[in-house]
C-alpha cells in the first residue's frame, strides 16, 4: 500500500523565482493538505484540496497557490520566492468516509526548499 509521496526531495531556488512541488496521496485518499514547516517549528497549514477545489486556507499570501487533479494528486506553487519561504513543505492526505471526513492525516516525507 503506497503511502504519501512527494517530489522533489530537495530543491534550491533563487529569490524571485517560482517553484512547483508535487504530491501523490495515500492510496484511496481523496483529500490533500499542504503544510510549511520552518526549522525548529511545527508544521503550519497552507491549504487543503478536496474534489479539485481549495476547501480551506491558512494564513498564507496569494503567492502560494495549488491545484488538485482528477487522480487526487496535488501541486503547490509558490511565486516570487522570498528567503523566508525556505522550509520543509509537507503534504498530507486524508479520506472522506461515508460517515464524513476523518481527522487523521497521513504525511509524506516532505520537500526541502532552500531559497538563496
Amino acid at each position: 500500500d503506497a503511502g504519501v509521496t512527494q517530489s522533489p526531495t530537495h530543491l534550491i531556488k533563487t529569490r524571485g523565482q517560482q517553484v512547483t512541488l508535487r504530491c501523490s496521496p495515500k492510496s484511496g485518499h481523496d483529500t490533500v493538505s499542504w503544510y510549511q514547516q520552518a526549522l525548529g517549528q511545527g508544521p503550519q497549514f497552507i491549504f487543503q484540496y478536496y474534489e479539485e477545489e481549495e476547501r480551506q486556507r491558512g494564513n498564507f499570501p496569494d503567492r502560494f497557490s495549488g491545484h488538485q487533479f482528477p487522480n487526487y494528486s496535488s501541486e503547490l506553487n509558490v511565486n516570487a520566492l522570498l528567503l523566508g519561504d525556505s522550509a520543509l513543505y509537507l503534504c498530507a492526505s486524508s479520506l472522506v468516509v461515508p460517515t464524513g471526513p476523518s481527522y487523521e492525516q497521513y504525511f509524506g516525507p516532505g520537500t526541502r526548499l532552500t531559497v538563496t
Partner: protein
Amino acid sequence: DQQVKQNSPSLSVQEGRISILNCDYTNSMFDYFLWYKKYPAEGPTFLISISSIKDKNEDGRFTVFLNKSAKHLSLHIVPSQPGDSAVYFCAASAEAGNMLTFGGGTRLMVKP
C-alpha cells in the same frame, strides 16, 4: 497567537522509564487531538489520537490523556525505548477533515 503549545523543547529519559510529553491549547473549539512522531528526513507519522468526548486513549505503550477543563493533554510512553527518540508533535482539529494546528514539538531522547 499560538493555539497549541508544547512548552518543553526537549526531554531526556532513561530506557525503560516513563516519558511524559505535554501539550496545552487555547481554542475551545478543538474537538480532536493527535500526536505525531517525526524522525529526521521523514514526514510526521501518526501515533495516537483522542476525541474530546474521552479523557483517555491507550494503544500499546502509548496513552494519551485529555483534561478539557485545563485545556491540557499529555502523551505517556511506557516503557520508553531508544527507538522512541524523535520529535513529537501535538496537533488539534476543530472539525473532522479540517486543518490541523500543531504545537512546536518536543524532542525526546531515550538513553540506553
